[in-house]
């Protein structure tokens, strides 16, 4: 079920990435597929994250002026690195996920820019300027999206927690009332 939800999220992210720049130029600085890929990689399923990385990257490349496969390459690499880090380090806290997203954004810009330079197709934007704006945009939107994902996850897990701790909580709440009476 988690996989289906993430797949839907990735499809929506790619569709929005295709269309949002038409609405405003600012949206170009937000890499929505990268946000979803990093989130998927943090779930410790590296195979799924790798496939997501390649597919999302290629979908964006197909409509871009850049080389076909360059985003696919960088996003696949990021998916692997993030899933390996998530395997070794506990990253379930939102505050710890933000630096991971920042790192992913930096690596994405460097790899994408480097690959184009390597193959003689230098990108239009300046590495520092475009990379910095992209980092800011993706981090802000990514944090908000992760907050949303987390709140949706909590909604789902809340009844389970109540079931687990119900008897203990009830006794703690009742005691002071009884004493007051």
């Amino acid at each position: 079920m988690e996989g289906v939800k993430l797949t839907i999220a990735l499809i929506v992210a790619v569709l929005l990435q295709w269309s949002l720049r038409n609405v405003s130029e600012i949206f170009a600085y937000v890499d929505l597929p990268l946000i979803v890929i990093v989130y998927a990689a943090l779930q410790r399923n590296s195979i799924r994250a790798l496939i997501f990385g390649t597919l999302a990257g290629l979908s964006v490349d197909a409509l871009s002026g850049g080389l076909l496969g360059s985003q696919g390459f960088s996003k696949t690499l990021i998916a692997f690195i993030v899933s390996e880090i998530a395997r070794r380090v506990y990253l379930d806290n939102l505050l710890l996920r933000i630096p991971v997203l920042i790192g992913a954004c930096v690596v994405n810009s460097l790899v994408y820019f480097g690959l184009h330079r390597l193959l003689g197709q230098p990108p239009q934007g300046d590495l520092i300027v475009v990379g910095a704006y992209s980092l800011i945009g993706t981090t802000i939107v990514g944090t908000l999206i992760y907050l949303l994902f987390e709140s949706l996850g909590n909604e789902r897990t809340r009844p389970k927690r109540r079931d687990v701790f119900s008897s203990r909580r009830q006794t703690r709440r009742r005691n002071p009332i009884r004493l007051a009476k």
Partner: protein
Amino acid sequence: MVERSQKDVWRLSPWLLSALLLVNFVLMAFDAREITSGQRVIRTWTQTAADFVQSPITSITSGVYNYFASISSLRSAADENDTLKVRIQELEVEVKQKADLNSENERLRALLELKETSKYKILTARIIGRDPSVWFDSSIINRGTMDGVKLNMPVVADGGLIGRVVAVGPLTAQVDLVTYSKSAVGGIIGEIAGSNALGVVAGTSKKDLLEMKYVPGTIDVQVGQVVYTTGQDGIFPAGLKLGEIVNVVSGSATTPHQIQIRPSARLTSMQEVGVLLYEPPGKAEFEQKLPNAVKAK
């Protein structure tokens, strides 16, 4: 569905990573080769598929945008109306003068027995998508081979030249802007008949700036002069407006001028464009036999 243990996943992932990176790298190398050789097959078919998503979204977003834009523009409508009435009167006089000039031109042509030069048709197109990557700035239009669009056809807007078609599918085409750092157009300062200030107008990666190279330093160049295409590059027809000179660093007898041009077409807010159904005249036979000539497929 086969359930894999975490150990299997961790064991498999480096192999899968290597395979996927290799696939991506091969695609990149193939695409880099296609850029110089012509049509980009995989890209055009993906764009055609994406058109079914992009076109409705663009229609909806532009509809909403136009609705709010029309509301906000109501305030200035009365002032604009008065200005336009004055402008119409001015234009009527100009139209009359043009009509006189046209008839005079026709009479003179008849006298000189000149044949009518065939002008290229313009196919109007709508921009349905912008580059999803922030590193590039190509646009996707809703016209393709089914409408007669071909590779390298020039694309214009109200102000002048915008760019050229770099990939074309059945329903869509991808357009690279003149401001792209790898684009170059043969340019001339002033009218073709009355100027010898030839050079190459190249992109600078900035949206509002072009650079003109190789203009001899001995030629007088002024800020405010207009630059047109020469038609000598074998892609663009002659006489298309490129922009206006905004800055000149004067050269000398041995060094060329450094000229900066502001594009006349508004590249930041394009919605409707025109594709010139223009095919450049074929190259001379001896030119095609040159060792470095691009072979036609």
